[in-house]
């Protein structure tokens, strides 16, 4: 029983697509291979990419996390408020008093505030994971509620106002160019590598696959599902918070409205990458490719000056197209 040729295609077909897209783009636009454009493409892909990493864990485990988009907004505002010492203070009811440019009074020193926000993100993930596991409620519903809650929290927290005053060290996370490589990309690819190793070469990682593939089977092979079922949400929340902080850097301020609908982009990227929504099957590599494919198509449409609206349609077509590709290539299923 050696892997069938179409299995190989099924696994690597996506990479060919990516390659093809790169070539097409290069042909279509002379600008494509310009340093600026590539840097651009990668930077913009990185944010979705990081969210997609966390999402990959969740989907591999057989769940889904709709709350990441809101988490980005919340983390972004939370980070800014940590810097304002405005932590946990709701603003007056008929808030509409203009702050002016608020003065920056960090209540936590630099590394700590970041860690704090990341911890909060992870904690929210923990909540979703726990509820979904303990009460056996479909993660779609739980994270949907958490999504609504978190967004509401973020927006009412500052009544929707962006909070200004994010230190340059954070902006560096978004704009820095060590060795001419965009900082977000370094973070993204670095994280991807770690996740890849984690999922492929640790027992816990394999356990996530196992629980996703069949909880009972995993249990009988001596795996206690609880943590495997909860951890992915923690990872997802963590990455969402990370993105939130980086976005604060990118905007130079915290904005509670940031990240709306990003959860769907992340999910799309993951499924395009060949991770099965029914769990237990997929890979980080695929996700990275998925993110790149989406970013690439948007990028080339941009270069061709195709307006935003057709772009959205294109996105829809890619999602269905890529999945159709998968299902066509791996048609050994269905007894």
């Amino acid at each position, binding site marked *: 029983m050696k892997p069938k040729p179409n299995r190989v295609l099924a696994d690597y077909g996506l990479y060919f697509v990516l390659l093809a897209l790169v070539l097409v783009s290069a042909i279509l636009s002379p600008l494509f291979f310009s340093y600026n454009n590539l840097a651009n493409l990668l930077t913009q892909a990185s944010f979705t990419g990081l969210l997609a990493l966390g999402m990959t864990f969740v989907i591999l485990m057989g769940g889904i996390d709709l709350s990441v988009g809101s988490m980005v907004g919340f983390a972004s505002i939370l980070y800014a408020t940590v810097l304002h010492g405005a932590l946990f203070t709701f603003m007056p009811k008929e808030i509409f008093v*203009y702050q002016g440019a608020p003065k920056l009074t960090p209540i936590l020193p630099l590394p700590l505030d970041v860690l704090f926000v990341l911890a909060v993100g992870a904690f929210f993930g923990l909540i979703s994971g726990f509820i979904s596991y303990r009460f056996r409620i479909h993660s779609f519903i739980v994270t949907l509620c958490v999504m609504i809650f978190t967004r509401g929290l973020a927006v009412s927290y500052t009544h929707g106002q962006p909070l200004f005053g994010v230190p340059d060290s954070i902006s560096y996370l978004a704009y820095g160019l060590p060795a001419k490589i965009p900082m977000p990309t370094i973070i993204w690819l670095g994280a991807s590598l770690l996740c890849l190793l984690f999922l492929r070469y640790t027992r816990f990682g394999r356990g996530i696959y196992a629980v996703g593939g069949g909880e009972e089977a995993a249990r009988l092979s001596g795996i206690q599902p609880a943590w495997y079922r909860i951890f992915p949400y923690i990872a997802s929340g963590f990455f969402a918070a990370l993105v939130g902080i980086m976005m604060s850097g990118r905007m130079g301020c915290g904005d509670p409205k940031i990240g709306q609908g990003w959860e769907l982009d992340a999910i799309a990227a993951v499924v395009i990458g060949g991770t099965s929504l029914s769990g237990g099957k997929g890979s980080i590599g695929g996700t990275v490719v998925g993110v790149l494919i989406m970013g690439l198509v948007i990028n080339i449409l941009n270069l061709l000056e195709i307006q935003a609206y057709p772009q959205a349609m294109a996105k829809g077509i890619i999602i269905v197209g890529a999945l159709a590709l998968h299902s066509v290539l791996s048609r050994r299923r269905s007894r």
Partner: protein
Amino acid sequence: MKKRVLLVLSVLLIAAALLGAQAKKILIGFSHVSMNNPYYLAMDKAARDTAAARGADIIVLNAEEDISKQIADIESLMVKGVKGLIVNSTTEYGTMPIIKKAKAMGIPVVAIDRPLYGDYLAYVGIDQWKAGELQGEFFTKKLLPAGGNILLIIGDPGCPASIGRGNGMLSILDRPENKGKYKILATYKASYNQMLGMQKMEEGIAAYGDKIDLVYCANDSMALGAQAALANAGMEDVLVAGIDGQKEAYAEIMKGGQYKSTVINNSWEITQKAVNLLVDYLDKKVQPKEKSVITGTILVTADNVKKYYDQNAVF
């Protein structure tokens, strides 16, 4: 297999349609916040027309009220090698870092319609605060001299236009002589869109019912929406005021109904000014005289509306 081909084809087709837009004129970029109301659409058209008239190429990108998309838009404009940028910023601060980057790349930025935080060439638009004050004056002097409850519908909290227009008005209400006479029931956000204006107004009606005496909206589109909602609920006695001088608003004011006032904020004029200013700067190295080019803000009420109403204006 088939799908991949299809994918490539679709991209190719779109490309074929759009290749051949290469010329040697100056290229400027306009990062627009949104196209969700006539005011913005007018800006879009004005920008294209003026640029064409000045023999410049212009790329307009629409951020759909999403700051992160706006940043991405500006980045891709830079990639396309624009010589100058016009930015109608989603939030006041949000574009600061990217504008810094633009400056570093030697691309001048003209802020339009909404003041910017950061290092830009010039701001073209009305004095948002003043517009708010004009309305405030009108409320306190004419509409509700005895005081009353006001419902506030702003665009986006982070948006300088909303901040100015809102706080300008509030600053009048805070004057000693008005202290305690007026109450702000609530502040809703409807991102300058008529539909959202209507929906928020409905929420407002559900929450405050006939407590509401006056609805003040940060632009006319939302005001028109709010008015529709009030009409549906049969609350013709609640007063409505907006800003921008959209011609539908003029029409309403002329009817002499509940829609009482607006403030002229001619998006066409603003955009024209901005484009010319930028092109002059790039072409003839003309430094703008002042940092902020303020266009006229005039209160329009039933008394003077005839003067400004133009049936076939774009906006």
